[in-house]
C-alpha cells in the first residue's frame, strides 16, 4: 500500500480547508493510501490511444446569447451570509491579494 506521509495529509487538509486532529490525520493516511492503491490498479490498465473522458455526456458546449436577466435582489443575495454590512458580505479582515 502506498503510504501517505502525515505532512502530505496535512497539506491536503490545508488546501481543502479542513481541520483534522491527530487521529483523523492518521485515519486519512490509511484511507487515502487505500484509495491510491486502487488508483494504481486503474493506472495499470493500458490506455494508450484512449481519449480521456472528462464529461459524462458526449456533447459540445452550447453558448447562451448575451442577454441580461434579472439579478437577485441584494437582500436575497445576502440572505445566507453569516454577517452583512453596507450591502456587502462581511468577513474577517483580509489583505487584498488582487490576484486570481
Amino acid at each position, binding site marked *: 500500500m502506498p503510504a501517505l506521509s502525515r505532512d502530505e495529509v496535512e497539506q491536503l487538509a490545508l488546501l481543502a480547508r479542513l481541520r483534522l486532529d491527530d487521529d483523523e490525520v492518521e485515519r486519512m493516511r490509511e484511507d487515502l493510501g487505500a484509495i491510491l492503491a486502487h488508483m494504481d490498479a486503474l493506472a495499470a490498465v493500458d490506455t494508450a490511444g484512449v481519449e480521456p473522458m*472528462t464529461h459524462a455526456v458526449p456533447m459540445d458546449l452550447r453558448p447562451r446569447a448575451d442577454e441580461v436577466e434579472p439579478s437577485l435582489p441584494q437582500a436575497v443575495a445576502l440572505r445566507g451570509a453569516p454577517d452583512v454590512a453596507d450591502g456587502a458580505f462581511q468577513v474577517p*479582515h483580509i489583505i487584498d491579494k488582487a490576484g486570481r
Partner: protein
Amino acid sequence: MSDAVAPVLRRWEPVIGLEVHVQLATRSKAFSGSGVEFGAPPNSLTDPTVLGLPGALPVYNAAALALALRLGLAAGCTIRRRSRFARKHYFYPDLPKGYQISQYDEPLCEGGAIELVCGGERRRVPLTRIHLEEDAGKNVHGAGATSLVDLNRAGVPLVEVVSEPAITSAEEAAEYMRALHLLVRTLGISEADMEKGQMRCDANVSLRPRGATTLGTRAELKNINSFRFVQKAIEHEIARQARILDGGGAVVQETRLWDGAAGTSQSLRGKEEALDYRYFPDPDLPPLVVDDATLDAARAALPELPMTRLDRFVATYGVSLDDARTLVGDPALADFLDAAVAASGAAGARAGKAIANWLLGDLLGMLNRDGREVAASPVGPAALAALVALVDGDVISGKIAKDVLARAYATGDAPDAIVEREGLRQITDTSAIEAIARELIAANPKQAEQYRAGKTNLLGFFVGQLMKASGGKANPKLASDLLTRLLSE
C-alpha cells in the same frame, strides 16, 4: 528610466513576462445572465450561478467568445477549435464557488504576439496564450478588522493575455500595455479602463547576468493598475533584485503586492502554503467548440489594426515612426489624418506627411492649449488639407501658412477664404519683387558693398529685409534668387 536602474542594467538583464486581464465588454456575465455594470450598488448584480449556489449551472456567453476570438485573431494566435474550461481552486472570500472557471491545458488561443513601438523601433512580443476566465468579486476594507465583499464583478468575462518572458525593459513593458490597451479598444472588445479595473497587469520579473541564457529566479508583482505604475513597479523590482544579487543574496520566488501610493512592493508571504490550484476540467462545462461560422464572423469584425495603420502611415505617407506612433495612439488623430488625406484630392498620400506635421505641430498645440478634443477642432480635416495645398502650390509660404492656420482656428473660416480676404497670396511676380529688392540694395549700400567684397552670408540679411518689406508675402526662393543676381550686378 529612473537613475537607480541605469547602472544596474549594465550588469543585469531584466527578463519580464506580463499577465494581463482584460474585461470583455458584454452585457451579461460569462456564465449567467446577471448584468455587468460598474458602480452599481454592492451585490445587486448576482444570480445563483455567480453566488455558487447549489444546483446552479454555468453556460458560456456567446458574445464573450466572439470578443475573445477577435483578440486572438488580431494577435495572430492559433485558435484552438476545441478548447476546455477548467476549475482553478483556491479559497478566498471574493470567490464564492471556491474555484474560478478558467482554462488550463487547452486554452482558446496560443502563440501570436503583441506588436509595439519601443526605443524608436518596431518590436513584437510573443504571446504564450490567451485564455478565457471569469472575474472574482471585489474586497474593500470594512470597519475595524473586517473586509466587505461585493460580488457584482464576480463572473464578469475576462481574457488573460499571457506574454512570453520576452520583455527586456520596464519601458517596453509599459509600451506593451499601451499597445494592448489600444488594440482591445480598437477591436471594441473592452473599454479597458484601468482605473475601473477593466484591464489589470501582473508582472513576472527576473534578472540574469548580461549575456546569460538561463533565467534567474522570478518574483511576481501584482496590483499594477496604471500605465505609469507598470514602468515604476518593474523598475523598482529590478532595482530591488539587483541589490539582493549584488549583495551576494538570492531572489526568493514569491508574489509581491505593488503599492502605488508608497512606490514600493511588499511580499505576500504566501509561501508556507505553496500554491496548488488543483486544476481539472470543469465537469459542468462541455468542450468549447469554435465552428467556421463563428470564426469567420470574428475575422469579419476585425477593423484595421493599430500597427497595420502605423505601418501604412510610415510607408504611404512617409511619416516618421515616432510621429506615426503618436498618431495611431490617439485614434481621433489618426482618423483626422486619414480624412485630411482623403480630402486632398490629387495630392493624395503625398500630402500625408505635411498634413501630419501641421496636425501634430501647430494644430495640436492650439487644441491642447485650449483643452479641446481633436474631433472638435475648429479646423477640420478638409480645411487642413486645403492649407497644405496652398503651401504645396506656392500660393502662400510656410510662414504665412502658420498665420492662416491660426486665423482659421480662431474664426473657423476656410484657409482659401482667409488668404483671399487678407491678400496673403504670395508675390510670385518677379518685377514686383525686383522693385523691392532694388530699393533695399539702394537703401543699404554698405551691406551691398560688403557682399560684393565676398561677405556672401549677407544675402540672408537682404532676404530677411525683403520678406519684411513684402509683409512676408514674397516667395522666399524667388527673393533669394533675385537678390543674388541683383547684388552681383
